[in-house]
């Protein structure tokens, strides 16, 4: 009995953490290149509605995920064009992008509200998926969960083992120096921003196709902002961001369970818990300036004017 509850709890933690892993890892790449895109929430919602619309009309889960990524990238492209092409303020543009994404997704999804979808197929592996405890915990997820586990690995490898990753970090650390050496700063930042958009779109798709397989207006419910905080929380390191996503997912789920058990604390306070935890950890982390300086991209949010 208690084991079953434990397994169920862990499963819900995984589903709560997965969209955060996608969105935060995407934003990590964007920020490592020196671009601060505050529009994660908006890009997630456009991804979510596009993904859901695709299964609604075509009923193909793979296409739906790809479409959600494309939608996220398209939204990110608007952002990139404004801040990299036209040098608009990244903070203001990012906020606008979030508002834009919320409105656009509500408009696109208004005829799909309340329709249910069966959810992404779980990958069934004969024998191992039937194992007690381990089976449901490890071998009975949809493909996106496995992808979200591979993503930090791939991103860490890319950033710290490949030359392209080195160049990306360099562009985020000093765009003037990178430009002086001869790297295409703007082009690299475009690509990093688009990657962030694709991952946010995928995070959205996970929400509307797997987490709660339907379309509800504003269904990301602030997860985009949590993803942004997680990047700082993880001091721009892929594995710490991943860990942060699971920690946050864990606290979210635990407070739900605590409410279910009828613990005598007002539910509003319990709902605050994950956010309070995030703030506390952020405060603790900013007390260690060394760590921030070594990993934080120094040029984040600064517009780049190629030397005149």
């Amino acid at each position: 009995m208690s084991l079953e509850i434990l397994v169920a709890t862990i499963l819900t933690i995984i589903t709560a953490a997965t969209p955060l892993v996608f969105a935060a890892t995407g934003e990590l790449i964007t920020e490592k290149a020196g671009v601060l895109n505050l529009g994660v929430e908006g890009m997630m919602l456009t991804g979510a509605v596009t993904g859901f619309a695709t299964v609604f009309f075509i009923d193909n889960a793979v296409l739906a995920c790809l479409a959600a990524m494309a939608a996220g990238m398209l939204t990110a492209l608007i952002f990139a064009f404004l801040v990299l092409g036209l040098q608009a303020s990244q903070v203001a543009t990012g906020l606008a992008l979030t508002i834009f994404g919320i409105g656009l997704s509500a408009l696109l999804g208004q005829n799909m509200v309340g329709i249910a979808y069966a959810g992404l197929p779980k990958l069934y592996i004969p024998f191992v998926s039937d194992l007690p405890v381990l089976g449901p915990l490890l071998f009975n997820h949809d493909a996106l969960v496995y992808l979200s586990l591979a993503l930090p690995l791939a991103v860490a490898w890319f950033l710290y083992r490949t030359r392209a990753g080195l160049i990306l970090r360099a562009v985020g650390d000093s765009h003037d120096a990178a430009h002086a050496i001869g790297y295409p700063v703007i082009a690299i930042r475009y690509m990093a921003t688009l990657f962030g958009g694709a991952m946010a779109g995928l995070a959205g798709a996970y929400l509307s196709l797997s987490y709660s397989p339907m379309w509800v207006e504003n269904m990301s419910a602030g997860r985009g902002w949590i993803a942004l905080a997680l990047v700082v929380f993880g001091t721009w390191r892929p594995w710490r961001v991943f860990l942060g996503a699971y920690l946050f997912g864990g606290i979210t789920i635990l407070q739900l369970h605590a409410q279910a058990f009828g613990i005598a604390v007002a539910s509003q306070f319990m709902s605050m818990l994950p956010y309070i935890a995030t703030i506390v950890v952020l405060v603790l982390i900013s007390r260690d300036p060394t760590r921030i300086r070594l990993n934080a991209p120094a040029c984040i949010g600064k517009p780049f004017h190629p030397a005149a």
Partner: protein
Amino acid sequence: MSNRHSTDHQEQDRQTSVEEERAINGHATTTPLLALSGITKSFPGTLANDHVDFDVAPGEIHALLGENGAGKSTLVKIIYGILKADAGQIAWKGEPVVIDSPNTARRFGIAMVFQHFSLFDALTVVENIALGMDEPGDMAALEARIEQVSHSYGLPLHPRRHVHSLSVGERQRIEIVRCLLQEPSLLVMDEPTSVLTPQEVEKLFETLRRLSDEGMSILYISHKLDEIRALCHRATILRLGRRVADAVPSEETSRSLAAMMMGEELQGEARPPTATVGEVRLRVSHLSLPAADEFGVDLKDVSFEVRGGEILGIAGVAGNGQNELTDALSGERPSVSPGTIVIDETECGLKGPDARRALGLCCVPEQRLGHGAVPDMSLAENSYLTAHHRMGLTRHGIMRSDARDTFADRVIDSFRVKCNGHQSQASSLSGGNLQKFIVGREISQDPGVVVVSQPTWGVDAGSAAAIQSELIKLAEAGSAVLVISQDLDELMQISNRIAAICAGALSEVIGIEQATVEGMGLMMGGASLEDTHAEA
């Protein structure tokens, strides 16, 4: 000083023989490695390069000499492919070429060491070097090559260290090693010595001479005349974007080169103030302050005093506690106890900047834009920010705009700041002009004590002379002046007494007549006064 002159003579002899050798070998007829003709580049409002021609021969150390704004940096950026010329041709080994990007430049064999280093603080030495190469190959092999090249040229480097933990001299080594690994035929150096100690400069010159002997050409950009005379075979002199003269530096005097550079005779050299020294106006006793962050320097038991009528110079290589000392004196960082800093017999160690200004201490920080001035505010507003108290620019909490503007105009006029009136944005001024404005703003408040950090850093010779003479005048009028600078020559010229700061500790303060460039150089590296005598 006499020692220094004799090295100059040896240097001249050496260079004369090189010149003769070249003449005998028919050097003049060989194809130049790099030849520029008719290079023109304009920016909105200025013509940075106006039909500039010059060439660099193989194995030659060629100087590009000129004041700030003469167009040197623009020209080398065109050579390195960062900027595109509006008109003109570049020939490489006799063939006309188009250099459209730094990558192309590197392919031809041109390498560049930048004035403001193009380094990435959060990355390691080997990563930084890999970024500057087209085919860095395997990282482990690159580390080995860095060790080998850096040691064989006497530029030791640890490949795995993070750049932010390195001194400025070490950072420059990274740039040089990065260039050397590409085995270039032309090495461009943009003001490489502005951040080095005299000893480091001497070492750099040895390396450069060796490279030149090995056949590498070096294009050396500077406005330091002594260096160019000591190092370079030929010089091209730029003024206001035009090539105004060619010279063989060893055959010229510093004065004649300066005259070519400025287009007018330099006024007499600056001298320390000669007023009678008065009361102690600034006393710092046992000031210890832990660094504000991990990249800063702890101040260790710093004690000194400055009297009215004198200039005290504090020399030191960047990053040895100068900024921390300036912040502690200005009041941006309060000290531990009130008695550590005393202005005119008033203890003020715990007081903030405004209170200290009221007591008569005015301060010019090293960084002009963002620290000394708010970039996006007008000069009038910027003058209000530090002068509102002493100049009475506020009445009943309301800003007196007229008085503010009049004060700003007075500063602009008396310090000949080139700008479009007091409404110009601080960020629109050139470095030298903004520095004149900031120094002028502080001096015009009739301060009892002035603390100036890097008064003439990146400022051209004319403006530098003006700023120095104002500081001297101020001291002669009875103020105590503290100048913190990396430019040892400048300190030796204008200070009555001098000390060196190294790793947050201040050396003994000595009279200027006891100080030598060599001795100060050693003290900047942390040697005590006795050590320097022992070495001498």
